[in-house]
């Protein structure tokens, strides 16, 4: 048989403060360790209580909604705010004030000072280091860095002299290989002559050709004899 829904008067708040509820709690927890409640036993006792007492726990949704509206109205009245918008504004204002407030000074963080341990050396360490040095051949002397020859003569004069030399070398053909102008084993001399040739090329006195990639440079003397 289905039980009838409870009347509103049954749910009055005062009922929950009555002594019989306290008695119910005492009865339900009697003999249990308050620091380690046996939930299974507690649940069993509560189910026994429900079985003995006919209670209808189903509540219509409309009733819940009406109760929530009443509760909100009551809380607004108690808070002194007349409308919900004012209550919301009051809450927001309180939050802003809290955000603006100076934070509480935190205690200074003090880290302990610790020493980075460094092992004290022993004679065995010194001997190991000595043997390591002995086992290694002396370091070779560093090779002196190659430097470009410093020529006292003005660059334009050297370029003019190179042009005269080219004119002397031109014989029938107007092309002179670059390798004929410099000794093969002197990179500094090669660089110096090449810079002079670039200067002459810029002036239109010679033209430089390199038919093959990284191959011989041919110096053309267009105004040769």
């Amino acid at each position, binding site marked *: 048989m289905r039980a009838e829904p409870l009347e509103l008067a049954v749910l009055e708040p005062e009922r929950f403060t009555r002594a019989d509820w306290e008695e119910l709690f005492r009865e339900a927890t009697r003999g249990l360790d308050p620091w380690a409640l046996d939930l299974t036993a507690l649940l069993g006792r509560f189910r026994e209580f429900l079985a003995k007492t006919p209670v209808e726990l189903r509540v219509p949704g409309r009733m819940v909604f009406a109760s929530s509206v009443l509760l909100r109205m009551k809380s607004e009245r108690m808070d002194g705010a007349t409308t919900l918008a004012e209550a919301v504004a009051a809450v927001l204002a309180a939050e802003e004030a809290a955000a603006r407030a100076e934070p509480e000074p935190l205690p200074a963080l003090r880290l302990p000072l610790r*020493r980075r341990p460094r*092992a004290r050396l022993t004679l065995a360490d010194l001997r190991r280091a000595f043997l390591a040095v002995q086992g290694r051949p002396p370091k070779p002397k560093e090779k002196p860095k190659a430097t470009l020859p410093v020529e006292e003569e003005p660059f334009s004069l050297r370029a003019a002299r190179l042009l005269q030399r080219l004119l002397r070398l031109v014989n029938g053909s107007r092309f002179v290989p670059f390798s004929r102008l410099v000794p093969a084993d002197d990179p500094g001399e090669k660089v110096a002559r090449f810079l002079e040739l670039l200067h002459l090329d810029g002036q239109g006195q010679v033209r430089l050709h390199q038919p093959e990639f990284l191959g011989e440079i041919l110096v053309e003397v267009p105004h040769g004899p």
Partner: protein
Amino acid sequence: MDPKALVEAALFVADRPLAPAELAQGLGLPEHAVLRALAALAEDLEGDERGLELGQEGGGYVLRVKAELAERVRAFAPHQDLAEPVLRTLAVIAARAPVSQAEVVRIRGQRAYAHIKELVARGFVRAEDQGPTKVLTVTEDLLRYFGVASLEELRRALEVPSSEGQSVAG
């Protein structure tokens, strides 16, 4: 605050020898109080029940593990007191002292100049000008550090022939 406690704490955290004047300035103590504290600390640490000693290096004071315990506690100290290249330069100087700086540089390379500078700062090596170069000798502080009585003993430990010369700077 007890000056001895302050001096002990400063020496514990420092990674280099601290001179009494530097301790006095850093701790805000008169220098005579620092000297008294150092003497009391050295006395405290003398007993066999203590693992540390107050050492003198390069005009300053250091707290260090006693030489006879160094090997036993090595596993707890991941870093060596002197970097390996510096230690090798020190080994060359110890084996050949007195030796010219040029000779050490010839053996150890150009970085030996920096190594020698560090060793002089630590008070392990003394460098004296001699013409265009310097002559390097080991100091009493170095002998005390390795727990040997003489350079001869140090060289025996390195298995260096004794004919290579001997000189110790105070």
